[in-house]
């Protein structure tokens, strides 16, 4: 992107340039968004999209860099959401140890990361397309188990009355703070994935995706790299799970059902799994469609609509909206260069 790396005088400009104009504009727009948006658009569209964008991001990290398509990301998020409900406070009169948020959140995220690593370890024992099957089986089994287990998951009703904490004098369940909280964590995850993809680990992971046999022959521990990628994806999904349970105020088996698992895949694929921004784009599109379908086409056939969009994207542009944009852009640029009539 930038060639003037070694010029000492241009450090600051260099830093800005490294960040990229697109990022700066997008970032400014997102930070200023609350000035124009209503509370509803802040949380139900903004916050919700960011949360599902993070879930999509954790899938994108596995699928885009590791070649492992997982359908269990919502399950991982669900584990941290349930952990928050169990370790913190809920009003379902079951468990609820009342831990403060600064203790419960790290534990929840850790639990999610470990669960993710475990799922990863189970699924990387086989290769390629098996992952999608095994993770789908795990996601469905977890859903059915949560639905019937009362000792831990409180069965079909799940947990309710979970509230985002208030600290530093800010009540984080209010619209604006919650939006910024989501935005902060989303940006953090996004930056981490972007940075990580260019790190040695990221490069190795991508090389393993392209040719696992050669990497093994070169002496790399293929399984360890893959499982570590699952662990990282688990951290992101776990954070999203914490936000999700604070957002909904509740968690139940429906939250981690097969529909939700497939929604995350749809989000990542519609947005595009080649670049970390894709899932956020996909999440925004899907959330907007989900919320306003009832006003436009009626809610009844919403799934047909979203399924069709998904099918078209997979057929026409395997890289999602990002790929579509990448293809249209050169045409537009040429159009602009052409002299007027």
């Amino acid at each position, binding site marked *: 992107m930038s060639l003037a790396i070694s010029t000492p005088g241009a450090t600051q400009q260099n830093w800005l340039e490294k960040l990229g104009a697109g990022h700066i504009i997008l970032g400014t727009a997102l930070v200023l968004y609350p000035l124009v948006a209503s509370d509803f658009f802040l949380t139900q569209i903004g916050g919700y999209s960011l949360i599902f964008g993070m879930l999509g991001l954790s899938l994108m990290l596995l699928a885009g860099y590791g070649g492992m398509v997982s359908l269990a990301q919502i399950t991982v998020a669900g584990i941290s959401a349930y952990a928050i409900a169990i370790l913190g406070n809920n009003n379902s009169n079951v468990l609820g140890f009342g831990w403060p948020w600064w203790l419960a959140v790290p534990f929840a995220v850790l639990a999610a990361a470990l669960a993710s690593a475990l799922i990863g370890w189970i699924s990387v024992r086989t290769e390629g397309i098996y992952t999608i099957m095994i993770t789908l089986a795990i996601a469905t089994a977890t859903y059915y188990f949560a639905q019937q287990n009362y000792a831990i998951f409180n069965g*079909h009703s799940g947990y309710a009355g979970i509230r985002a904490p208030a600290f530093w004098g800010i009540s984080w369940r209010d619209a604006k703070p919650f939006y910024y909280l989501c935005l902060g964590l989303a940006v953090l995850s996004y930056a981490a994935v972007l940075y990580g993809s260019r790190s040695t680990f990221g490069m190795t992971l991508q090389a393993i995706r392209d040719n696992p046999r050669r990497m093994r022959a070169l002496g790399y521990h293929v399984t360890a790299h893959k499982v570590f990628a699952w662990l990282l994806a688990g951290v992101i999904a776990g954070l999203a799970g914490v936000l999700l349970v604070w957002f*909904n105020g509740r968690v139940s088996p429906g939250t981690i059902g097969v529909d939700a698992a497939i929604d995350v895949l749809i989000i990542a694929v519609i947005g595009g799994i080649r670049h970390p921004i894709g899932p956020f784009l996909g999440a925004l599109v899907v959330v907007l469609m989900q919320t306003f379908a009832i006003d436009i086409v009626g809610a009844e056939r919403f799934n047909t609509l979203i399924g069709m969009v998904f099918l078209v994207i997979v057929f026409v542009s395997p890289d999602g909206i990002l790929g579509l944009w990448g293809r249209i852009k050169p045409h537009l640029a040429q159009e602009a260069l052409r002299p007027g009539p």
Partner: protein
Amino acid sequence: MRMHRRTVLALAVFTGLTAPSMALAADDTIKIGLLATFEGPFTVLGEDGERGAMTAVAEMNGTVAGKKIEIVKGSSDASPDSAVRAARKLVEQDGVKVLVGPLSGDEGIAVKDYAKTQPNVTFINGTSAAQDTTLRNPAENFFRFSTDGAQWMAGLGTYAFKDKGYKKVATVAEDYSFPYTQVFGFMAEFCKAGGHVPSKSWVPIGNKDFSSVIAAIPEGVDAIYVALGGADAVNFLTQYQQSGGTAPLIGGSITVDQTVLTSKGKLKDVLKGTPSAGPTADTNDAPAWKAFVEAYKKQPGAFPSPSLFAHGYYVDMKATLLGLDKVGGDVSDGGKKLREALSSLSFDTPTGKVSLDKNRNAIADIFLTEVTEGSDGNLLNKLVKVVPQVNQTLGIPEDEFMKLGAVNRDNPSCP
């Protein structure tokens, strides 16, 4: 160049979509949110709920206190999460001050929790029938003019023990809150009367294969209490009959419905004489009920007879409109007057008088029915008797009732 286009895109996305449709309702209309399951497997039930609600709106000719009624629909897929999302959209985006819904038990509890965060909006139940929506931790602004799943069972336990002479009954029900509530309502009376329930089978939701469950029912029970959704009841009965079972049945409120009664095959003999109870009855001769059925049938796509969901949504919507009428359609005070009006509201529904208790839960009549063969050879639920004015504690003093504890798999127990 590239940057420029991105800017435009970014701006388009983030400003174009932010303008909230805060178009305030004009003074001469009043917005009412209607939350039901318009997607997912419960769509048919949600649509019948809507028919019930619209019957109430049609009765008022679409106006209340001189203002036009505008119904804004919200859709859930019967999961609590989606119900809350739909409620939030109705309240926070569409700006409704009065909301009727939702349809199913866990949704009701979730919406009640949400109601606590919106003290200026008035919530009126649809047909959700979980006990704890109003009994424990109630919300000041959540009203239920329809009854709960335990109330629906009023009279059935005593009837089974005394009139039918069943001393030992096994239960088979789905494994979630609504059937727990129904089993609770049945057993609260049945155990008190001196009956025993040696075995309770909780079947995972969605399970269609009951044969192993049937084999595990102890031999020598006098009857089997079945609280399964209509079609699952057919499954259960068919498999029960195939495995050579002969014990008579007792039905939950949604067990012996039309799906079951119209099913073909040899189930007829098994079903005849099955007692059940609920908020409505097929052969209710009261003129008010007959008038309601006629009014309901005018709705597009109506069933031959209104379902429990049409009935529940009708009663709750009717109460909402009566309340709004009393306060002249004025909810500008955050609905304070409306809630006062609703709390003291008492009115005649097609199924008798309805009023509220201190938790804002309905006290209403419950119908005890029994399956009989009609003159045309079809089975129907014949009205046996009306249990008048059942309250939420089933006539048991409140402190004694609360001691029974919250409904769950093991409560109550009388093996």
